[in-house]
């Protein structure tokens, strides 16, 4: 049997820390620097070599950001888009998933096959015709252009259907015998059981819609309707060296999701792996 060398066995801690500690710092430090720079006075950034720890904390980066851009408006737009995307996904995908998993009706098999077939279609293929379609029906340069493509997804329907198939049907039968309508069964009995799958769907839809860049970039040119990602990406081009301002913008764009992740970490990791194992 091969044994680790003596110096490793004499360490007062597990040798795995030698791998994990540097890696964890490598992943975390850029974000720490982002936050610190957002609160740094310009004099700390522009000296050479630049400081990592600010000499004092100032809010001028945020003040400049809100004075020179519509970042708060962009943030509000993003919140609206993501909220509509998540709520619509939760309702429409779980209803469709339930229908395809449990109800027997004409065209069910064909309908589900059509939806499955679209899972592999990448958004890049759809953006040109969708742009033309939206401009013909007057959706381009409205906030609706940003959220309409996020109202439902084949992945969401598939995920919910797989979850409902794994639920035992007895509870639903019991509720039906007690005189519950199909929608009542779904709303009062099935949906409360679907929390893990709904959490997964929320995570994926929130991440996707909050962080989306290419579609808002194509569909929206009025800067009052920008999402925060699009706003920052465009704003960067005009503010090359104002790093505390740009990092303040990054903090505004990323912190809501990062805080949500840290608060709900257990759920978050569980749902990511849940989706992964379902393939």
């Amino acid at each position, binding site marked *: 049997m091969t044994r680790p060398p003596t110096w490793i066995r004499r360490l007062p*801690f597990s040798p*795995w*820390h030698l*791998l*994990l500690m540097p*890696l*964890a*710092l490598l*992943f*975390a430090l*850029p*974000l720490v620097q*982002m936050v610190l*720079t957002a609160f740094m006075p310009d004099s700390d950034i522009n000296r050479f*070599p*630049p400081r990592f720890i600010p000499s004092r904390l100032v809010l001028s980066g945020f003040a400049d950001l809100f004075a020179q851009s519509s970042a708060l408006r962009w943030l509000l737009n993003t919140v609206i888009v993501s909220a509509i995307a998540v709520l619509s996904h939760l309702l429409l995908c779980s*209803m469709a998933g339930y*229908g*395809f998993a449990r*109800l*027997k*009706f004409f*065209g069910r098999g064909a*309908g589900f096959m*059509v939806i499955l077939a*679209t899972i*592999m279609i*990448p958004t*890049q*293929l*759809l*953006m040109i*015709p969708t*742009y*033309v*379609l939206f401009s013909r029906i007057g959706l381009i340069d409205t906030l609706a252009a940003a959220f*309409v493509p996020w109202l*439902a997804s084949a992945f969401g329907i598939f995920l919910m259907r797989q979850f409902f198939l794994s639920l035992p049907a007895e509870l639903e039968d019991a509720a039906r015998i007690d005189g519950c309508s*199909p929608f009542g069964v779904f709303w009062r009995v099935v949906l409360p059981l679907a929390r893990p799958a709904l959490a997964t769907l929320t995570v994926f839809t929130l991440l996707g819609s*909050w962080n989306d*860049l290419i579609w808002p970039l*194509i569909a929206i040119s009025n800067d009052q309707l920008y999402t925060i*990602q699009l706003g*920052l*990406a465009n704003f*960067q081009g005009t503010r090359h060296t104002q790093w505390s301002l*740009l*990092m303040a913008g*990054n903090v505004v*764009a*990323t912190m809501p*999701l990062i805080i949500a*992740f840290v608060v709900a*970490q257990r759920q978050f*990791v569980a749902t*990511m*792996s849940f989706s*992964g*194992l379902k*393939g």
Partner: protein
Amino acid sequence: MSLLFAGRHPATRRVALSAGRARWLSRSLVGWGFAGPATALIIGLSIFPAVWAFLISRQKWNGISPAKPIGWLNYQLMAQDPDLFAAVRHTVVFTVLFVPASIFLGMLIAVALNRPIRLVGFYRTCIFIPFVASAAATGILANFVFNPQYGAANSALRVLGLPQQQFLESQSQALLVICLIALWGQVGFSVVVYLAALQDIPKDVVEAARIDGANNRQVFRHVTLPQLGPVTVFTAIWQTITALQLFDLVFTTTRGGPLGATQTIVYYVYSQAFELSKFGYGSAVAYGLFAVTLLITAGMILYSRRSKIEAF
């Protein structure tokens, strides 16, 4: 109710039949009431545009003046477009670097995080948080960290006594740096998926191997690794699709530069369609990318089937 018990009277058969039809109709209405709204959205926002994109790809069209049908000309032009070849080459280089690295790092970090040691929660949080950050924010942050004059990357090289680099401003380094940034953002996903798979491996299998005298390395090679097969296929497909569709990071860091060195396929589609208004040609390139993605995914699934890895 009385009709149901009316016996063999000819009218009852008709009533029973239409009652069956009414039940069939009401079941279909209820079913489509559930499945209809989402299905209609998918058809309207995926199937319809996908078919339309194919029609557009056989036209010369700038989106405003009438479209001109040109058959397969756009696809023939693709075969002689040096800029497209360059974009394909950059995308392939990126994918070949990114996918194996994200799988190897994901597996390595997950194995380490699966040990009963202190600070595991802290490490996991640190490694996963970049996955939550948007590509736009990541790109802007990368411009700061890799800034040749005052970025942290060059400061670190200076402390180590290594020569200063141009990073994103160098034609030869930019794609590599983007790959590192993408790994920073995406490895967390591989780690979480592998960690879940590791925790699903039954403890008694590992115990049995140990009783039979297997050391750590043998347990990993002959017990753990085979169990990670399906999740590796899944991660490989997922990360390959992510890599082939690289756009956001390029847009927020180099915009395809310097001198086109980081132009990717999706970036090329974007610039052809929405900067140069070549909707037909852009659609043809997008269809080419779609076909290649399908082929690669199908190839990976077939390979995993043949190697008896039950991934799908």
